[in-house]
């Protein structure tokens, strides 16, 4: 591939990022001016200064996604081990594909009633639970290729050396799984971080995550703040990508 083609491709890839950043810095953009006018950092200053409540949304999104990722990763790691060693492993695994039959937002719509009755409608806990429904099965599928004969033998080895199940997990299984646990954690974090439809439906707007704010600004036709919120949304994944590409994409055998 020629140097020129590479540069063109990279340029194309960077264009959306540059575009959004540029919009976030503007205050006026009358037609048919190509670039926004009145460039300044005032939008960012306002946001970082605390008004607009975007800071709260960032914190909320971070808290929500961290909780979802931690819970899902831990639970699916534990559950996938018991499923992987079951004689009818394939049948059990196919259950994990169920939630993907639904689009998340439609699943949320069908479950609204149950959330209302359970008093979880419009609450942080409700949104967390709903997101668990889509992240947990993903985690189980993710870890299903991790458990194998070798690991099972290692677990038995710990037992034969006198260790309990807890010690087997703590001293061998979790350390050996560290890489996979991290990757799964970040992938589930991103799924939660990007989520809109389900969060909006179950949270009824009372759980204003960053994605909801983007949509809110779009509805208000406030292009500049929408772009700003978008920039905030994109930043963590880009940073994670910088640290480890595998976090955002990993080949899975389906």
């Amino acid at each position, binding site marked *: *591939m020629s140097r020129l083609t*590479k540069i063109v*491709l*990279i340029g194309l*890839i960077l264009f*959306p990022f540059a*575009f*959004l950043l540029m919009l976030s810095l503007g205050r006026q953009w009358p*037609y*048919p001016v*190509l670039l926004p006018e009145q460039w300044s950092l005032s939008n960012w200053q306002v946001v970082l200064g605390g008004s607009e409540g975007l800071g709260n949304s960032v914190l909320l999104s971070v808290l929500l996604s961290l909780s979802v990722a931690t819970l899902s990763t831990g*639970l699916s790691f*534990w*559950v996938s*081990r*018991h*499923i992987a060693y079951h004689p009818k492993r394939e049948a*059990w695994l196919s*259950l*994990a*594909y*169920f*939630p*993907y*039959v*639904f*689009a*998340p*937002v*439609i*699943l949320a*719509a*069908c*479950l609204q009633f*149950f959330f209302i009755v359970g008093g979880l409608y419009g609450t942080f806990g409700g949104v967390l639970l709903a997101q*668990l*429904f889509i992240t*947990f*099965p993903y985690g*189980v599928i993710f870890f299903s290729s991790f458990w194998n004969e070798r690991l099972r033998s290692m677990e038995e080895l710990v037992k034969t050396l006198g260790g309990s*199940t807890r010690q087997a997990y703590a001293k061998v299984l979790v350390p050996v799984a560290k890489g996979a646990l991290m990757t799964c954690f970040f992938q589930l974090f991103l799924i939660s*971080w*990007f989520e*809109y*439809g389900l969060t909006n439906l179950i949270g009824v707007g009372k759980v204003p995550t960053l*994605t909801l704010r983007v*949509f809110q600004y*779009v509805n208000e036709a406030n*292009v500049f703040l*929408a*772009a700003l919120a*978008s920039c905030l*949304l*994109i930043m963590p994944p*880009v940073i994670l*990508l910088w640290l480890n*590409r595998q976090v*955002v*994409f990993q080949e899975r055998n*389906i």
Partner: protein
Amino acid sequence: MQERWAAYSSRSLFVWLAAVPIVAGVSYALLYSLGLIGIMAEGLTLVHWQEVLTDTAFWRTLGFSLFVAAVSILLSLLLALALVLRAPQAFTRGTLSFFIYLPLSIPAIVMAFFIFQLLGKGGWLSRLSYQLGLISALEQFPDWVNDNYGIGIIVAHVIMATPFFTIFFANLYQNERLGEYLQLAATLGAKKRQRIFRVAVPVLLRRGLATVFLYFMFVMGSYEIPLLVGSQSVQMVSVRTIQRLQRYNLGDIPEAYAISVAYTVMVVILLGGLLWYNRKQMGRA
């Protein structure tokens, strides 16, 4: 024994978190659509199903969703395969191998917003056209968003799917050692075009079929992008369903649930088809 308790409770948790919500959701939607539960429920009735299945708008929605998904996937596959086959190493090593991941950090809602600002009548391309003298007024710019062909939706999905498939096929190329097969084909006398269409494409598509299919399902059921960038007259499934659920007309709700169930049935049939095809492949292999 402790081990047995752990095994049992972990599998129960699995059933509760993975299967129960789906079963509960489908059951609720089905019962509601049959008039057995709900605010305006009057007992078992097929009237809502009749209305949905005879409504041309419903079939147009399904057809439109399939159309958008098919076109998006096709275009992205073409682009991704072209990129990978032209320069297989470029996406697994070097600068490009980092940059190709960047678009994956953009969520659907941001992509929708971006496409709107790019392709809309008041958007960047429109302004560029004005500056270049291609148009003399905003209204002259073509309808590329909120249009009846789903152009904006397709473009958005293509931008999201192409990097994904590129990375996927680049990895697959490496793992399947396609390069060696192509060299082998060359020594057997195959010309470039033959090598691409008789060796590379079949191998990549065959192994990648499940992933492509799942992505297809994902596009069909997408919500955020058609929500911001789609039109009111022809909608995609998720948007239509949610919209009907949230309208003031309570009579629309059972129909919305009927649509949900119908869509789910369609997905299950398609998934079943994929599994059957997969099993046949394994049997042959």
